[in-house]
């Protein structure tokens, strides 16, 4: 009998041969040392493979060592979600809806202010593009969320193609470049000299700008100061420190400023978010004025309505329509209606104290005054209800974070414990981020980016406390890694932070520090994760390349 082949040896070792064949082999093996050696070598191989497979060279993840129980509804969860939901409801009911209602009452013709602002492009045509961007952004977030949920079903090419498709969609969604528009960028002063005429929309990024000539189109200005001595036939939209309009504007004036003075003439409406608004006597706005201002002086002539949300105000001019004044509840500023005031429509006031109306003022009807007190008691920061609501919202945000990125939450909350570094970084990002966002706003490409960064910053300031809360919870209950234990620590930590925030005087600091610490820790962790080298590459193939024989 010749030597046994390997297959037969393996079947023999595994007891897979019929009894007769096995006996035959045993006889052969007794006589043939070569075949016995092969058998032993194969056994060694089996042993090596078994040992390699059975070695406990890797730990078993802790979360796998306890069985997953079917999630029953516990009262804690019901309470937490109930609080969160009613928190959102209260916020809507107490704050958002009345505000929207009062805006609606004040001359926005039955449409919601935000709808007007965003959808109808009332403020700026560019909003429409930005809105599209926001919608696509939220779709992308939704897509990423779904991708995460179904990550097990999506492998390699399918997920890759989805990831490639998302930026593509974004690229398609980016607003197309404005047409018939000129852009001017300078560090110094832009001047449109007297006697000169330009026929286009004009974007100006400059320290200051003087429009002495005629601009036949819209003017959009970003910079320090803007003076219009000449004429603008379209709208004037300004993001500036100070705006002075001495000449004529054929369209609307819309501005975000420190101060605006309209000494000339505006053919349509004025809308301003400013600290100081002035319409001196002799000036004229043919349309209405909608103001969100710190203080206002209206001594000139308004063709239609005046609607103002303000701190302090003087009305001593002529108003062709109605006057609606909404004074900030917390202000101590005065409201004076002077002797030269002449209001053709109704006069309504809502605020903390009755306006001081001169006896010589000419009002078409008796002023309707509605006094409002401070915010409702249950919306004050000391109220338990308010705190439960904030707790609920923060908890909800934290829950989302823990379920999406438990590792990140854990790492960040431990980073909070180092206090020094996160505090420093947190303070820096607290100050720098909004400044960077505002700077981004001043470049036209960055407008969307800047505004979204600002929203993100506000949101981050709120959710950063989640990390501080988890850290607090872990300091009390001990470190953990599972999702539900982490959630428990989050709940406890948030509760402690809320209680801390209710302490008079110190409460503000508790809130501030927890946010700054959380934000700093998050920044550090993200930075470190980006710095961390990728996982070491797989060892090179053990088989060396041999020269061809």
């Amino acid at each position, binding site marked *: 009998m010749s030597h046994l082949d390997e297959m037969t040896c*393996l079947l023999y*070792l595994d007891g897979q041969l019929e009894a007769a064949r096995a006996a035959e082999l045993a006889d052969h093996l007794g006589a043939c040392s070569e075949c016995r050696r092969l058998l032993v*070598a194969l056994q060694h191989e089996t042993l*090596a493979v078994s040992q390699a*497979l059975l070695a406990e060279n890797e730990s078993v993840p802790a979360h796998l060592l306890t069985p*997953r129980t079917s999630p029953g509804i516990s009262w804690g969860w019901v309470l937490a979600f109930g609080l969160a939901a009613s928190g959102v409801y209260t916020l809507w009911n107490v704050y958002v809806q009345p505000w929207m209602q009062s805006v609606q009452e004040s001359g926005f013709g039955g449409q919601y202010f935000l709808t007007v602002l965003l959808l109808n492009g009332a403020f700026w045509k560019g909003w429409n593009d930005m809105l599209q961007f926001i919608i696509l952004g939220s779709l992308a977030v939704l897509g990423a969320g779904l991708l995460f949920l179904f990550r097990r079903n999506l492998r390699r090419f399918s997920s890759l193609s989805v990831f490639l498709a998302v930026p593509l969609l974004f690229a398609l969604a980016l607003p197309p470049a404005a047409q018939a528009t000129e852009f001017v960028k300078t560090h110094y002063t832009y001047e449109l000299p007297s006697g000169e005429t330009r026929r286009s929309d004009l974007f100006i990024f400059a320290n200051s700008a003087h429009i002495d000539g005629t601009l036949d189109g819209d003017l959009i200005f970003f910079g320090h100061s803007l003076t219009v001595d000449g004429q603008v036939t379209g709208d004037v939209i300004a993001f500036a420190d100070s705006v002075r309009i001495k000449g004529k504007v054929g369209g609307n004036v819309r501005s975000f400023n420190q101060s605006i003075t309209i000494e000339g003439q505006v053919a349509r409406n004025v809308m301003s978010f400013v600290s100081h608004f002035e319409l001196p006597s002799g000036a004229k706005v043919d349309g209405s004025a909608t103001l969100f201002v710190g203080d206002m002086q209206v001594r000139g002539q308004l063709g239609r309505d005046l609607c103002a949300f303000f701190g302090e105000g003087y009305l001593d001019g002529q108003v062709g329509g109605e006057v609606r004044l909404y004074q900030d509840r917390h202000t101590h500023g005065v409201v004076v209606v002077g002797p030269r005031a002449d209001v053709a429509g109704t006069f309504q006031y809502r605020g903390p104290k009755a306006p001081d109306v001169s006896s010589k003022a000419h009002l078409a009807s008796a002023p309707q005054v509605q006094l409002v007190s401070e915010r409702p008691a249950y919306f004050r920061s000391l109220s338990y209800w308010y705190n439960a609501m904030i707790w609920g919202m923060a908890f909800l945000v934290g829950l989302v974070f823990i379920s999406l990125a438990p590792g990140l939450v854990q790492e960040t909350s431990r980073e909070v414990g180092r206090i020094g570094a996160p505090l420093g970084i947190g303070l820096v990002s607290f100050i720098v981020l909004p400044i960077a966002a505002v700077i981004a706003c001043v470049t036209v490409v960055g407008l969307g980016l800047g505004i979204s960064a600002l929203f993100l910053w506000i949101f981050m300031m709120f959710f950063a406390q989640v990390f501080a809360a988890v850290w607090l919870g872990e300091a009390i209950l001990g470190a953990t890694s599972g999702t539900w234990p982490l959630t428990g620590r989050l709940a406890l930590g948030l509760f402690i932070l809320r209680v801390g925030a209710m302490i008079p005087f110190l409460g503000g600091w508790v809130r501030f520090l927890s946010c700054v610490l959380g934000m700093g820790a998050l920044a550090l962790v993200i930075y470190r994760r980006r710095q961390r080298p990728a996982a070491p590459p797989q060892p090179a193939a*053990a*088989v060396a390349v041999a020269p061809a024989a």
Partner: protein
Amino acid sequence: MVTGEGRSEGMSGVELADAIARARAGSAEAWGEIYQRYAAAIFRFCRRVMPTRQDAEDATMDIFLKLRSKLDQYNPERPFQAWLYKVAANHCWDILRRRHVRQDLETGDVESLPLEHPDPGQLDALISAQSGERVRQALERLPVRARMVLVLRYYADMNYDEIAEALGLRRTFVGVVLLRARHQLRDLLAPVPAAAAKIASVRGTP
């Protein structure tokens, strides 16, 4: 033959039978006991078979969900661990098969039997030169079917019938698939391909 440690982690027969009976009756506590005894072994099984740690974790959780819902189908007269590994193997193989609809899963090449008598000295030298770590790395680089069959045989200690059923092979081919897997492993372990070629000098042609 080395017995898989995966099989030695069980409870005593009576305890286990009792726990299974209670778990079948709906006792979460009994299920917890069973889970805790076998979670590590099943995770390690998945870790050996699946390409990444995350895959292994996911698979472990899914397997236990399946086990719990299928507990009624378990025949108490058969070994419990064998049943566990059978469910685990089916689950992992399903996932792998869905991901690789490729040649390395097909069985065409098993028709040709390698009937060589390799040099025992060379084979022994090759094996004794390896550390456990190197063997593990080589196992990870094997094609999925080769890795799967080695794990089923030498980790889960399945017999040829069980392997045939789990991989959907004809029983007579199990030995061939096993031997091929060993050859592929040797190729990966050999310092130069020529050495492996000497150990299994001719492939597939008798």
